[in-house]
């Protein structure tokens, strides 16, 4: 993976989060503390500011650097969660991964996120998007870069009727039902952004 491609991935992810920061904050205001959009924007602005130095690194190191920036800058639980995801991918990926390598690495990174958040599928979190995306990714087939964003968007919609078990939204109990989980939405946005870059390639 060349430097220009890694840079495009960073820019696409940051643009998607920054463009949807208000929407993420509105989702989080409904069931959480209302800082998800601003926090993620702060994190990805830090990643974007370092895009040149990050993108010259080999892929595993670049992902670790992205993860570290998110951990240090986001300021909410989503910092360690997304940071752990990126660092977990960096740990599990070879320098030039195949699609199968990437799907397996995502599976391992998701396990890291589960441990970090002490969370499982079905608890109205980012995992409810990441897990079905990883399952489809690992199953392989044609047009992954077109199918995965649709799977992510559907999975984010599927968090609406769920009751939150983890995080601030769990304080609301039944009242968390009827709203999309902001972390599921931000995960879906990132899947869309990454796939759009692969679709253009």
């Amino acid at each position: 993976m060349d430097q220009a491609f890694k840079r495009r991935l960073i820019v696409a992810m940051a643009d998607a989060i920054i463009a949807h920061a208000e929407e993420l904050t509105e989702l989080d205001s409904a069931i959480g503390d209302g800082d998800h959009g601003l926090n993620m924007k702060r994190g990805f602005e830090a990643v974007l500011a370092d895009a040149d130095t990050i993108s010259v690194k080999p892929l595993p190191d670049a992902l670790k650097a992205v993860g570290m920036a998110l951990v240090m800058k986001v300021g909410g639980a989503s910092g360690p969660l997304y940071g752990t995801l990126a660092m977990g991918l960096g740990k599990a990926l070879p320098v030039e991964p195949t699609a199968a390598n990437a799907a397996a690495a995502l599976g391992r990174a998701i396990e890291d996120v589960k441990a970090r958040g002490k969370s499982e599928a079905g608890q109205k979190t980012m995992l409810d998007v990441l897990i079905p995306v990883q399952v489809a990714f690992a199953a392989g087939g044609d047009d992954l870069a077109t199918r995965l964003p649709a799977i992510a968007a559907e999975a984010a919609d599927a968090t609406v009727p769920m009751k939150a078990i983890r995080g601030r939204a769990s304080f609301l109990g039944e009242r968390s039902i009827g709203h999309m989980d902001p972390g599921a939405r931000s995960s879906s946005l990132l899947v869309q952004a990454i796939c759009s870059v692969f679709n253009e390639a």
Partner: protein
Amino acid sequence: MGEQKNVGIVIVSHSAKVAEGAADMVRQMVGDSVPLAAVGGNADGGLGTDVGAIMGAIDKAWSESGVAILVDLGGAETNSEMAVEMMPEERRERIVICNAPLVEGAVMAATEASGGSPLDAVRATAEELMAN
């Protein structure tokens, strides 16, 4: 500061004001006999927690006997766990995050620490609050 034997206490809140206020209450109880650091707020000064700042607080309150961290809500715990993992390996096993209410836990833990109790006793005293 010289050799510091009492367990240190770190207070991590989403709010700098809560963290400072809790630290004031700890000081009123134990004075300067316990290494103490309090942090609150994200990197922009808003409500939230900051991994780098938490690492700095652990350094500030560091004691060879270890450090007990008291946190308020979820993100404070997750960011504190991240901060502990990023500390040098030889220190990590001497840092604990207490499952206890922030203000009461900090005061109880510091009081226990001021008597020279080891880290596991300091933690147990704070965590008794959750058992009652």
